C-alpha cells in the first residue's frame, strides 16, 4: 500500500490526461484566487504605499547587497523555518503542515504526470513520500486545530466550532485525511475518492475566501519588515537601545540611576509561561 502509486490504479477508470487536466485546473484556480484576493483586498497597493511611506522616514539607505542578504535571511528564517512564530508549538505545527503539504503536493504532481502511463513503474520512494507528506500534514493540522488554534487556546471556544477563517485548515485536513483513507481502502473510485476530490477542489478553489494565499504574501511582508529595521525607519518603533551606552545614559538618566550602568538580563517575566486560564 505504501509503495504503490494510488493514482496508477485509477487509470483504468480515469484517463491520465484527465488527472493531469485536474492538476492544471487547480493551479489555475490558485493563481486566479490569489489575483482576485489581491484586487479585492488591495493588499498589493497597501503594501507598496506602506513601503513608500516607510522609505520617507528611513535614516539610511539600504544597498543592493544588503537587500540580497536580507532576502536570504527571510528565506532561511521566515520561509524555510517559520521563524516569525514566537510560539514554538505553533512554529512546529506550521513546519509539519507546510513541509507535509509540499511533499504531498509535489509527489502527487510527479506521480500523476510521470507515472500514470500503462507501462510506467513508479519508484517506491514516491508513494512512500506521498503517505509521509499526508501524515505530516494531518499531524500538524490536527494538533493546530484541536490545541493551538487561537480560537481554542485563547478565545476558549469549543474546538469543533467552524467559521470562515477555518476554511483553509479544514480543507487541508480533509484533503490529507481522505487521501490517506482512500489509499488505505485500496484506491480506485468510491466514496473516499469522491471526498478526497471534493476537499482538494475546496482547498484550491476556495483561495479567494480562505487564507491559502498567505504563503505568497508572508515572505514579502517579512522582507519589508527587515528592510525597515535595516534602514532605521523601524515602522516608527523606538530604537533598540543598548543600556550600557553612555549616550543612552546621558539621554535617559533614569536608566543608570535605577538600573545601574550595566543592568543584568532581567529574565522573561510574562513571557516565561503561556497564560492558562481556561
Amino acid at each position, binding site marked *: 500500500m505504501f509503495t504503490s502509486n494510488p493514482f496508477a490504479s485509477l487509470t483504468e477508470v480515469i484517463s491520465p490526461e484527465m488527472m493531469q487536466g485536474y492538476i492544471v485546473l487547480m493551479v489555475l484556480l490558485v493563481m486566479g484566487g490569489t489575483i482576485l484576493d489581491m484586487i479585492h483586498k488591495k493588499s498589493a497597493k497597501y503594501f507598496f504605499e506602506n513601503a513608500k511611506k516607510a522609505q520617507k522616514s528611513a535614516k539610511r539607505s539600504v544597498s543592493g547587497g544588503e537587500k540580497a542578504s536580507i532576502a536570504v535571511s527571510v528565506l532561511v528564517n521566515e520561509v524555510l523555518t517559520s521563524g516569525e512564530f514566537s510560539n514554538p508549538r505553533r512554529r512546529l505545527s506550521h513546519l509539519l503542515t507546510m513541509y507535509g503539504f509540499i511533499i504531498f503536493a509535489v509527489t502527487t504532481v510527479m506521480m500523476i504526470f510521470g507515472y500514470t502511463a500503462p507501462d510506467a513503474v513508479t519508484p517506491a520512494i514516491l508513494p512512500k513520500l506521498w503517505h509521509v507528506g499526508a501524515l505530516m500534514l494531518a499531524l500538524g493540522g490536527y494538533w493546530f486545530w484541536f490545541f493551538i488554534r487561537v480560537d481554542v487556546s485563547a478565545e476558549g471556544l469549543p474546538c469543533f466550532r467552524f467559521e470562515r477563517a477555518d476554511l483553509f485548515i479544514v480543507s487541508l485536513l480533509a484533503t490529507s485525511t481522505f487521501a490517506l483513507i482512500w489509499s488505505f481502502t485500496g484506491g480506485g473510485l468510491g466514496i473516499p475518492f469522491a471526498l478526497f476530490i471534493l476537499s482538494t477542489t475546496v482547498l484550491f478553489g476556495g483561495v479567494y475566501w480562505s487564507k491559502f494565499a498567505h504563503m505568497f504574501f508572508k515572505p514579502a511582508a517579512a522582507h519589508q519588515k527587515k528592510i525597515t529595521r535595516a534602514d532605521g525607519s523601524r515602522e516608527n518603533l523606538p530604537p533598540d537601545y543598548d543600556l550600557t551606552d553612555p549616550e543612552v545614559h546621558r539621554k535617559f538618566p533614569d*536608566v543608570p540611576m*535605577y538600573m545601574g550602568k550595566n543592568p543584568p538580563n532581567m529574565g522573561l517575566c510574562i513571557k516565561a509561561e503561556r497564560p492558562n486560564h481556561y
Partner: protein
Amino acid sequence: MPTFVYMTRCDGCGECVDICPSDIMHIDKSLRRAYNIEPNMCWECYSCVKACPHQAIDVRGYADFAPLGHSVRVIRDEEKGTIAWRIKFRNGKKEMDLLAPITTKPWGSATPKLADAPAPSKEMRDSELLFNEPKYIRMDEGGLHTLESNGLTLKKGVYY
C-alpha cells in the same frame, strides 16, 4: 487613546486576547487576526500593546489633540527591563523618544517570601492594623510621614 491592530502585522497568536482586562480583544472570524471589538470600552491600559510579540497593536489618539497621521509606538522589553516609546507627530518631522525602567531587579527575585514570615501573635491579630502595616506606613520610625514632619509646606495655587 484606544488600541487598534495592524492586521498585516498580526499573526493571530492570541496574546492580546489573553491579557486584555476588558475582554475586548478578540479574533476575527474570517481572517483569524486580533481586533479591538469595542474601542469605546477600552481602558487604555496598553496591556495588549505591550504584550504583542509583533508590535502589531498601536494606540489611536483622540482626534481633538492627535489627528490622523500621528504614531504612538512602544516596545516593552522584559529581558532588558525597560519600556521604550516613540511618539511621532502628524507632521512626520517631530519625534519624541522615551525610555524608562520597568524593573530594577531580575523578575521574580524580589517577591516577598510571606510563607517564611513568622505567624502573627494574638496581639497582632486583635489589632486594627493590617499585616506589616506599622512598618510599611513607617509609624515605627516616629509616626506617619507628613509634609510638616518633613519640613515642607503646601503652596497655594496651581504650580508645577
